[in-house]
């Protein structure tokens, strides 16, 4: 009951956020200097042609009507055609999605699978040699921009050992493991700085939770350190780290835009840059909106997950959204 209420409340917020996000996207591309119709038709178009195209595109309608139309299109997956590719925006985006989403998921898995053991190792004995080593290591990773990391890794992997060919990409439908293989290194480059970030927060949180009273209580109940770590400290640390993880997710999504460029992968990043250089606004606005949509849903999911873990969340605490 409490849970349902909480989710309901979050859904309302999700809805409001989506409304604002969609409006921001729409507004941003509406205030852009330059007339869409004249961009499309080129400089030699006549006034009649221009006004014909405007009414065909609905540009002569009032902004509010256009916004509603656009919103309807955004949620039904019909954002019109790209100027540059003369293809539906949605199909261009869904074509590239496997790369970006695949990379993001792989990166997230790496972040979780690596930062947790690191943080446990480090937080177990703060100030120990292993903790200090991991912490310094984490700081250095933190400071490495993903594209520098990518360049480094590409140089090492492909030039020196010849094991990795940049730009190789296999569709998941044809060879799923090949597809994962192609995305492994780029995902790693995105994940590394985020591992450092998650590690840092998780470690701090583990150290904090370790000093908490319920840990002392469990000790007095006779539990061993290991079971206290896994049964009490980790779930509690996760609750406070989950906001960070959801921010990491959005960073991962943004990071993949750059990294796939370095690795020459056919993902949304390349489409985005192409759309930018061709001033393909339908495509741009579509991409911006859907990427934001994904982020909003991820934040929502993070809220739901923390509500599932943390009963307090369900009745009073603020969510991420």
């Amino acid at each position, binding site marked *: 009951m409490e849970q349902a209420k909480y989710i309901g409340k979050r859904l309302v917020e999700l809805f409001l956020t989506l409304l604002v996000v969609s409006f921001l996207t729409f507004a941003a591309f509406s205030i852009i200097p330059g007339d869409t119709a004249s961009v499309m038709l080129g400089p030699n178009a006549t006034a009649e042609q221009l006004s014909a195209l405007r009414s065909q595109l609905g540009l002569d309608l009032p902004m509010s009507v256009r916004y509603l139309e656009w919103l309807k299109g955004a949620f039904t997956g019909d954002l019109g055609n790209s100027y540059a590719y003369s293809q539906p925006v949605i199909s261009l985006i869904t074509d590239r999605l496997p790369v970006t989403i695949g990379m993001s998921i792989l990166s997230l898995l790496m972040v979780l699978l690596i930062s947790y053991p690191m943080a446990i190792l480090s937080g177990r004995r703060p100030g120990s040699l292993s903790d200090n080593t991991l912490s310094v290591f984490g700081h250095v990773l933190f400071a490495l921009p993903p594209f520098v990391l990518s360049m480094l890794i590409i140089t090492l992997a492909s030039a020196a050992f010849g094991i990795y060919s940049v730009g190789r990409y296999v569709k998941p439908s044809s060879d799923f493991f090949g597809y994962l293989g192609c995305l492994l290194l780029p995902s790693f480059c995105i994940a590394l700085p985020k591992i450092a970030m998650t590690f840092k927060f998780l470690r701090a949180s583990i150290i904090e939770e370790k000093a908490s009273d*319920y840990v002392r*209580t469990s000790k007095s109940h*006779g539990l061993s350190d290991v079971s206290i770590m896994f049964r009490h400290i980790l779930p509690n640390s996760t609750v406070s780290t989950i906001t960070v993880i959801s921010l990491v997710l959005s960073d991962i999504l943004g990071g993949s835009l750059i990294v796939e460029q370095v690795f020459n992968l056919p993902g949304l990043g390349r489409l985005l840059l192409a759309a930018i250089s061709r001033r393909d606004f339908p495509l741009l606005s579509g991409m911006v909106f859907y990427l934001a949509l994904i982020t909003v849903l991820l934040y929502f999911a993070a809220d739901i997950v923390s509500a599932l*873990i943390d*009963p307090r969340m369900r009745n009073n605490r603020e969510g991420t959204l």
Partner: protein
Amino acid sequence: MNIAEIRNLSMSIYSGKGVPALILDDLNFHIREGEILGLIGNSGSGKSMTAMTIAGLLPESAQVTSGSIEIDGKDVLKLSAGERRKLLGEEIGMIFQDPMTALDPLETVGKNLDEILRIRNIPKEERKSRIISMLETVGFIEPERIYRSYPHQISGGQRQRVLIAGAALLKPKLLIADEPTSSLDTVTTVSILKLLKDICIEMHMTILFISHDLSVVNNFCDRVMVMKDGKIIDSDNTEDILHNPKNAFTAELLTKAKLDPRSLGLEFSEVDPSGSPVLKVMDIATAYRDGFFGRQRAKNTIEGISFDLYPGEVMGLIGSSGCGKTTLAKTICGLLKPTGGNIDHCSGKVGVVFQDPVSCLNPMHTIRWHLNEPLVAAGIKLTKEEREKKILEAIKAVGLEEKHLSRYPGRLSGGQRQRAAIAMCLILEPSVMIADEPFSSLDASSAASILKLLSKINRERKTSILLISHNLRVVRTMCRRVLVMSRGHVVEEGMTEEVLKSPKASATKALIDAERQLS
């Protein structure tokens, strides 16, 4: 027979490369079977560390340098880590100070207790039934509901009961209670102490009771030890410790703990109840709203409160925690908007003094800035000299000196900070002062001087005071009239003498009972 024998126990804490700090210095004592042994001392005296050493829960940086701890005839220091862990729960049960956070907030109460039995491989059904029956033992009427509740859904007193249930679940011989009542209000404190005593007798347990507060020891402990700087400096039965302290430090502790307002000879201003009041509170209600949908939260809500405050009158406001005292105070001084009713300040100003001397002053600003701020806020135009004069006047009026003006709050003691806060309040010459537990965090001597200060202000300036307190003795000496609150309502009001002598409402009775228990 002794359940625990501690001999020549010394313990040090190592930090970095520095010299290890000696925390426990050659302790020698024993705990007799079935007794309740009190261990009293200021914070940092080593009393909690003694408990942790006995339980084997010391931090990694701590090391026992000498001595032995024998529990039930076994020297526990010679046991392996695993064996020592096994002792916990079975031989030694523990409860701690802050029940707010002593349970894992992510698990239900049942789950929190379940682990004690689970690691001892007891089957699931048996686990649940044992926990439920133990919850019943510690006084829960609906143990099933508590079992399913999350820690944040139950009150502080209930949580402490849950912890006691956990500590007693395996019927250990020794129960170590480390400040179990320090964060509870008086009524709850009394009930928890009663529960501990009952369990002690019922389950043939021995209790090592640790507290900084001498008042709880009375009527509870059989023997008391006093600790200072890692040493036990005094040990005797409770009666003697409390009434004939042999040790000078123990005597000092006693005077600090005992606030006896009657001995202060306070004098107050005359009150004319027929005059026009300085504060009229008419049927006010305040509710906290929560979230998007504006649902009301029951807690801390007040309703239908009316009273008048006359010039020069000191009125008490008492009630257990969560009854709405602070909400009322906040509403009167304008921090909360009443959802109904009316408050008439009768063209006078209302000043307020809060409870916590730590957070009552802004740590980033000097005392002079603090005193200047009300003048700025009130828009009083003054020349530099006049301003300085007023500030100086105010600071002198609360017994501080000019040199304190340029100091930051961090460099003042708790009592001094509380005085500075009063000075801030006084500088605008309010007709009414609301004092919300102004000395509950201070030791007895500081509290006494604040009391004196308040009476002086009342006497000399005819300032009316609304005193919120849980200390009935203070209310008895200071207040002409008293309001008793419970669950957001005023349940009783009248002249202090009458109300406290023949209470009518059950809430008043509970408060008076608790006071008697702990005196």
